[in-house]
């Protein structure tokens, strides 16, 4: 039956577009299954990083509210937050990580708002703004580290 359909399709009567399907299936097109050679364009990477940093910041709210609560509760609470930020390496790492996430999310968000106004919404502009986002947030990540340490 299938053979019959194939034969008739190849011979001219092809109501279902079978000839096109056969050609696609049997063609010797190059197939790239090496995922290490496939990479996302930069705007796609900054977009997913915007989402990841957003999730990180949401989880980080626990530390933010904890620090705010403790620092405002009493002079002793304020001192415990201050000394933890000044001496505890783990606390410093968390603070640096959250500030870095905030910096990137902030810059990528500004980029979003710029694009909403219609500024630079083309392939070249998209690439350039993604590059600028990476550079500025990299600077902010370093500055945040300098601030924390």
């Amino acid at each position, binding site marked *: 039956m299938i053979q019959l359909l194939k034969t008739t399709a190849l011979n001219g009567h092809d109501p279902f577009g079978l000839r096109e399907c056969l050609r696609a299936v049997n063609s010797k097109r190059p197939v790239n299954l090496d995922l290490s050679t496939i990479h996302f364009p930069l705007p796609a990477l900054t977009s997913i990083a915007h989402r990841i940093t957003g999730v990180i910041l*949401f989880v980080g709210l626990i530390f933010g509210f904890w620090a705010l609560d403790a620092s405002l509760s009493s002079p002793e609470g304020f001192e415990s937050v201050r000394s933890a930020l000044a001496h505890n390496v783990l606390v410093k790492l968390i603070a640096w990580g959250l500030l870095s996430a905030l910096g990137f999310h*902030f810059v990528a968000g500004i980029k979003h*708002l710029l694009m909403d106004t219609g500024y630079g919404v083309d392939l070249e502009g998209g690439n350039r703004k993604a590059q600028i986002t990476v550079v500025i947030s990299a600077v902010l990540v370093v500055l945040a580290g300098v*601030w924390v340490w």
Partner: protein
Amino acid sequence: MVTNITNLGRSGLSDWLIQRVSAVVLALYALFVVAYLLFHPNLDYATWSGLFAQTWMRIFSLLAFISMAAHAWVGLWTVSTDYLKHTGVRFGFQAVVILAIFVFLVWGVQVLWGA
């Protein structure tokens, strides 16, 4: 038209606007707090608690917390509907997020006006 019963504004356009307005509020609040801490390197408890005793700072903070709640919900709703295809898993995730947002809001109010 596709209607969705779990997104914040019940319309994509409404969510779009809420996300941007809340983003501007959060950006201003983040800038203010970071700048305040940078300009007060030897901050003490009296100055810090004095800032949060001001009515305008409490209003600004509560506005930021409410913006955070809306912003986080629109963002995490978008992420969860994009990546969590199983309805039960997605619903569970969204329930946890709503509970967390609610806890953060109540916690924030308590910190601002607390005991």
